């Protein structure tokens, strides 16, 4: 039995939910996150807000790709603040005086992946830049802007959702060829 059932349910909601669920999550954790880094990291409110946004990007990637999944080793707030701590360290910040406030263990696998995430984003961006239109727009609509296929078809002037889906697979295949 997991000790973090409620957080696992929340994670599941985030993974499958839309923007509103993420905004709710952001609003819920914004105060505690900023307060933590303003107190322990001696950050200004603006610096803490900037760090929160960076931490949210890392958290979003791990949550939506299933890299952060049940069973959780900690609650989601600890994960988010832990990611913030790792990012703060990466920018040369000192956490020595308050390291024990947030344990490193649960966040360690995520921290190890931050560089991979940045490299993956860089690789995908480079491939999208090379793939040309309309594949670039189509893949961005599907995978980055999260348009439904109907909207993709509408935006690209394709006759149907099915046609858009077929074009998506063609573009993915083309992108895979570029990867070689």
């Amino acid at each position: 039995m997991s000790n973090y059932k409620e957080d696992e349910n929340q994670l599941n909601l985030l993974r499958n939910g839309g923007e509103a669920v993420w905004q709710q999550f952001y609003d819920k954790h914004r105060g505690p996150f900023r307060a933590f880094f303003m107190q322990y990291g001696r950050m200004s409110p603006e610096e803490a807000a900037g760090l929160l946004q960076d931490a949210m990007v890392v958290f979003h990637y791990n949550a939506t790709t299933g890299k952060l999944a049940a069973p959780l080793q900690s609650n989601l707030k600890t994960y988010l603040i832990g990611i913030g701590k790792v990012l703060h360290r990466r920018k040369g910040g000192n956490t020595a005086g308050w390291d024990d406030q947030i344990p490193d263990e649960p966040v360690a696998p995520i921290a190890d992946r931050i560089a991979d995430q940045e490299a993956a984003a860089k690789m995908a961006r480079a491939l999208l830049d090379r793939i040309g239109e309309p594949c670039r727009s189509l893949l961005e609509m599907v995978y980055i802007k999260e348009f439904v296929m109907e909207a993709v078809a509408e935006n690209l002037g394709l006759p149907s959702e099915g046609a858009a889906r077929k074009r998506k697979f063609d573009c993915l295949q083309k992108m895979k060829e570029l990867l070689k």
Partner: protein
Amino acid sequence: MHTEDYDIAIIEQYLAGQLEAGAAARFEAQLAKDDTLQADTAQYRRLFDGLAALRSQAYSDKIAGWEAEAQLIENEAALAPVLEGLAALRSEQLRDKMTGWETVHQSAATTEKTAIVKTLRPVFVRRLAVAASILLLAGAGLSWYASQRYSAESLVADYYRMPNVGNTMGSEQTMQGRLGARFAEAHRLMEKKSYAEALIAFGEVLTLSRSAGLDETRMRYYSDQVSWNRVLILLAQGAAEPELRAALDKVLDDPKNEYHPKAVALKEQLDSFWRKLVW
């Protein structure tokens, strides 16, 4: 479905953990004995990871919007005492006005008394009192006129028009659907005079319009709507003069803005003598 497409669809679902247990087991069995499928799956995993990482990066724009909203709400709370103070000042101004009205009433009463005891005062004093009364009445009348025509409330009522927002039900699945729905909501909030919420909603409209894949004409439509309604909201909220002027200048500086002529007219009214008489 094309065979290759079918394979990609299955690989994508498998990597996303969306295959049912039976289908996943069949796929894994095939994967174990097919080197090409293994290589393809590994490559698609890299692609989907890269696209997911880009999607998460793109979220930082949205997060920035949420932060702006949160700060706005925070600032509203922080500004509450200031706004209350300004409201108190406005009430104090009303007290001054009432004093003026009272003087008019008293002057009128004095004139009546003077009429009764007219033999006791020289004619020129009586005429002076009547003239003063007329001046005071005229002043109050002018101030009333200015308030009716040039107060923030009147100006907003004159300039705000609800556009045809159409039927936005059931279309929130698409980015354009969400944009349409939020736009309609922003105008409903304007109609309800919930200006702080309308300001947030228009901010979201602007963000959504930039990522909804609109053509230039539609982008321009939403951008013009947002910039003009922002002016009206700041006016209605009694925002600081520099903030209001900066928002108005943004519309004035863009002759292609649909609301440019209205902005010119509004500026004239804000600069007019009458506006200074508004209490």
